[in-house]
């Protein structure tokens, strides 16, 4: 995939939406139901707004683990031991760094029909990369804005890898990637439907491999980094409901975050949520 040409065509798509509707668009909107229904999932229900009008601000914060994080267990690696046996493959379901930062917490705007600021749209990459490297998926948690981005899946291991997922109400994938280096080590996947929560990606060859992917209709999502920090950039002005999600518990229930949800009003200033503490029981430890 040539990312330069990709972003170029992406920009064209954007501009189309700013102009008055073309004849083709009229046709699409009002024409035969067949045409409409087919193109519906591809014709994004998102609207583009100029940055100057609606650009609000970012939401920042940091997830901090309060307590002693459990030891990350070594996973059973009993397939392709020649290749995978040499890696220290450990459980990635709770990643706490030395400073207590919790990685891989999803935070995303749950509200529907969020206008997308052009700057956010244009700054987002055209592809989200899922790498098969060292016999695990990297990164462990991904999120994708399906209307602009596609999933680029690549294998960097010298063994064949499999990527299988079945998003709710979307087409399932079960792809083989040839060993690297070589041909056929990559694939791209487009999603036809946004999801309200992440789903898991598996490798049928290596049962320990697991990753999570959130597919959204807007670009307002973030995954906390290794140090627990996250930033939801460029949220438009308005009241938006945010959602927290963690693979161990699903919706991450915290004080002030009932069902992992909290509504914030974006007025034009950045919001810093500061340190958001996570107790062991919040992520399902000791239950």
């Amino acid at each position, binding site marked *: 995939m040539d990312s330069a040409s990709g972003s170029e065509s992406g920009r064209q798509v954007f501009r189309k939406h700013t102009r008055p509707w073309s004849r083709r668009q009229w046709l699409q909107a009002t024409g035969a139901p067949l045409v409409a229904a087919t193109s519906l999932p591809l014709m994004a229900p998102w609207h583009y707004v100029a940055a100057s009008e609606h650009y609000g601000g970012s939401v920042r914060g940091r997830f901090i683990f309060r307590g002693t994080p459990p030891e990350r267990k070594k996973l059973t690696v009993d*397939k392709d031991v020649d290749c995978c046996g040499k890696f220290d493959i450990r459980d990635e379901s709770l990643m706490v760094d030395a400073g207590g930062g919790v990685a891989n917490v999803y935070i995303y705007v749950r509200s529907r029909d969020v206008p997308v600021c052009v700057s956010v749209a244009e700054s987002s990459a055209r592809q989200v990369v899922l790498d098969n490297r060292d016999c695990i998926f990297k990164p462990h948690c991904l999120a994708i804005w399906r209307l602009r981005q596609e999933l680029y899946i690549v294998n960097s291991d010298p063994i*064949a890898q499999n990527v299988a997922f079945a998003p709710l*109400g*979307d087409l399932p994938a079960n792809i083989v990637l040839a060993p690297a280096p070589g041909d056929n080590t990559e694939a791209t996947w487009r999603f036809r439907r946004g999801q309200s929560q992440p789903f898991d990606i598996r490798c049928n060859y290596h049962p320990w491999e697991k990753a999570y992917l959130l597919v959204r209709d807007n670009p307002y999502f973030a995954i906390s980094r290794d140090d627990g920090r996250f930033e939801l950039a460029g949220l438009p002005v308005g009241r938006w409901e945010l959602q927290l999600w963690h693979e161990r518990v699903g919706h991450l229930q915290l004080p002030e975050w009932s*069902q992992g949800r909290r509504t914030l009003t974006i007025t034009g200033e950045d919001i810093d949520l500061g340190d958001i503490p996570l107790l062991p029981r919040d992520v399902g430890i000791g239950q």
Partner: protein
Amino acid sequence: MFAMKHNRVSNHKDTADGLSPKADGSATRRAWPPSFQIASHPMVAWATVILLILGGCSSYKPPDFKLNLEGRDPATVKPVQREAIEEVLTVLFGTPDDPHVPSGVDLDLALLKKAAGPIGRDFTGNERGLYRKHCAVCHGISGDGAGPIAEMLNPYPRDFRNGVFKYTSVAGGAKPLRSDLLRTLNRGLPGTGMPSFSPLSQEDLAALVEYVRYLSIRGETELFLLRAVVDENEPLPLRKQFVLDEGVRPVDAMWRLAEEEPEKYVVVPQRPRLSPEELAAAIERGKTLYQETRAQCTKCHGPEGRGDGSESELYDDWNKLKKGITEEQTHQLARWFSLPLQPLRPRNFEDGLFHGGGQPEDIYLRIYLGIPGTPMPAAGPAPGTPGVFQSQEIWDLTSYVLSLSHRGTETGRKVADRTGNKLSSESGMARE
């Protein structure tokens, strides 16, 4: 009860004729007994009681679609949520006796009406209830694959509600074509409980295909609603338009995908015509491909294709959810599923039994497209994926796989030695 009565009566007769004061010859030779005697006979009383009881329960109660609670603790679904989901589904899709088609969805209502409803004919002789007549005993009224006899079968009947179908001709995980479903109905799935419905008329089959599509589209909408209402607490009441736009239409669009863009999704096998030498060479090449690491065939199917690869614990997507990490977890999970955990076995090619059909075209499609819902991955190119094998290589693999069939037997070896065309038709599989 009848048995007891009968035995007693007959035994009574055997020996005790004389016991009965009325039983002497003269008494019984008298005229027809007065009617009150018959009426007071215990059997009459019995019959009356039974008929009354049965008469009471003989009013037809239309069945309902069962809410899809697979993998869920029913207690986690609030009654108000359940009602909301059931209500909107009824508005959009009707009931098992009276199906509706949501506006714009690609379903033929006339065909659905033929398949839906109770079994029987109306006074003009038109038949309806075809689904219940032919399918429901395995696939269930709701298409949940948990009909009354589902547990007897291995593999289990398909749960249509996930929208995943194993034997198709479409790439990229797209929904099957009508012709794919029709093929499965016509041919059945050898070695499984899925019969061939070839004795049925083409109209009846078309109606059943449409009804399966209906149950599947409804089922995926239901999954969407469960996600939205139960998992995500969507505010109630649900707006019909919201469900249509976000639940029904995307599913419908996916069902249209392959029908409307066949050039992109539909794979049409073009079997090469091979001379015996070419076939032998193809089998050799196929063997190399099979054993190389590119597609990891040996992982599940074993080095010799005996289905004894290192991947021992395999499950399809319907059963995967029932598998906990520990035994205890699996046991706990079992409570929330209709059917017990059922492991999946990779095919042993020597058996020559292929559920999706044993024609070279069938094997080709299985390798090319994978088997959706199972660990069998798609090896051929699809939109977005270059695929690890190209068409020619897949044909080589097909030849190799078929050459393994019945390898253990003398006839099998002969079969395997035949030319490309014969190879297929003699491999012991049902033909279309």
